């Protein structure tokens, strides 16, 4: 479980997050929504350690992880995707995924130079997981393509794939839906649900497509202007006046038919 405790983030004069406190429950799929610039991505960055909050604490399963660096948090079981894809541009799709797995044996310089046998099994396993992930994301035909040459949506899929490769406890998904074909997206939703149910993975996802959120999430956090506006079930927030005003607008172009 992740808990943000009175987090503040300042960028120069701007306070992007202002004493926000909320929890992401273990084993659940939590939605994080809110208007543009509300501080959602910043909140993810705080959780993942990419940004140091100017005040407040981040707790992971009750332990204070505020001082940990991003890679330490990743090792503690946290995975995240980036809203703007951060692929390894010169590596192939397969390598992108393989490089994202943890490989303690194969990343040890001594092993690499003097004891190559030590990490072969680990590699084989990473390879197999990577292939499965590629298949799931329907990226088979570009598996050897450099990730830098992928289309915008494909890059997002690679983002997701890399998070899955971590075999994490908690995954933070920052708008993976934006720019993804809806048919594929609903397949991904099935996968997320499956991972959640079968492996007990915790998800927190930022998304602007409410259908998608309602299909997946049992709990929704709404941020606005750097603080938590409200939280509750999808239905609850859908009907919340403040949320409608800050976020939904008139609902003229219904996603549903």
């Amino acid at each position, binding site marked *: 479980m992740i808990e943000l405790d009175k987090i503040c983030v300042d960028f120069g004069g701007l306070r992007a997050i202002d004493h926000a406190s909320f929890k992401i429950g273990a084993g659940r799929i939590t939605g994080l929504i809110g208007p543009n610039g509300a501080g959602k991505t910043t909140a993810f960055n705080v959780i993942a350690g990419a940004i140091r909050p100017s005040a407040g604490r981040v707790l992971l399963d009750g332990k204070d992880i505020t001082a940990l660096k991003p890679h330490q948090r990743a090792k503690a079981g946290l995975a995240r995707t980036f809203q703007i894809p951060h692929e390894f541009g010169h590596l192939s799709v397969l390598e992108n995924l393989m490089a994202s797995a943890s490989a303690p044996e194969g990343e040890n310089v001594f092993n690499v130079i003097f004891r190559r046998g030590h990490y072969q099994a680990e590699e084989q396993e990473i390879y197999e997981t990577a292939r499965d992930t590629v298949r799931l994301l329907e990226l088979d035909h570009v598996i050897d393509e450099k990730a830098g040459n992928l*289309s915008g*949506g494909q890059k*997002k*899929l690679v983002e997701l794939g890399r998070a899955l490769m971590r075999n994490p406890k908690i995954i933070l998904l920052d708008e993976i839906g934006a720019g993804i074909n809806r*048919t594929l997206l609903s397949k991904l939703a099935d996968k997320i649900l499956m991972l959640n149910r079968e492996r007990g993975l915790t998800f927190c996802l930022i998304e602007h497509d409410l259908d998608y959120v309602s299909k997946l999430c049992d709990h929704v956090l709404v941020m606005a202007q750097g603080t938590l506006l409200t939280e509750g079930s999808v239905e609850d927030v859908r009907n919340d006046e403040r949320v409608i005003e800050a976020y939904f607008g008139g609902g003229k*172009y219904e996603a549903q038919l």
Partner: protein
Amino acid sequence: MTERLSVTNVSAGYGGPPIIEEVSLTVEPGEIAVILGPNGAGKSTLLKTIFALTTVSAGSIKLGAKELAGCKTSALVPLGVSAVPQTKNVFATMSVDENLDVGTYAAPPKDKAATRERVLSLFPDLRDKLKQPAGELSGGQRQMVAMGRALMSDPKLVLLDEPTAGLSPAYLERIFDLLLDIRKTGITILMVEQNARQALQIADHGHILVNGRNYASGTGKELLADEDVRRLFLGGAAA
């Protein structure tokens, strides 16, 4: 004066094998056309091709009588074409105000102050960010800056690559309203969207690309009604 955009049997790519092949579509003045398709189908590539950012191996792209294939990218803006790329669409180190200003260099609008005012009233969130470098904006805010910049030159044809990706429902609505508005002034709009169902509601017609080729096309209503299209591209029969 606005003109028809016609793309005829165009094949294009990035130096290797062609990514899009024999793609055709026509957008009349004052129409909104939307391009749909799976990820990697070549939608962005098609827009980039119209904007002279790829290598065209066959076919022709015309704006009115003017052939665009072979033009330099920078020469298109003065012709009244402006574009919003899908990624990397803001000048990250420049402030929001400067980003908007850049939009006027190549094709200065008649009344710069008024245009700027119009753009800002479209994206009121940007008002308190005018001095902030665009690289420090949230994903959605960047999208607004990018659209704003493209509109600063009073274009006749606007190419938008996923303009609503990452925008909140309220903004999606606002943008679509805007598109309907500017369409009334005779501006031609060609956009790529993954928020397909919403986009088809405002589009005059849609074109589906698959594997770099025309797969289907029709009016928004027709496509929305088509079972196959819904299943394959619009996420099934909705939740």
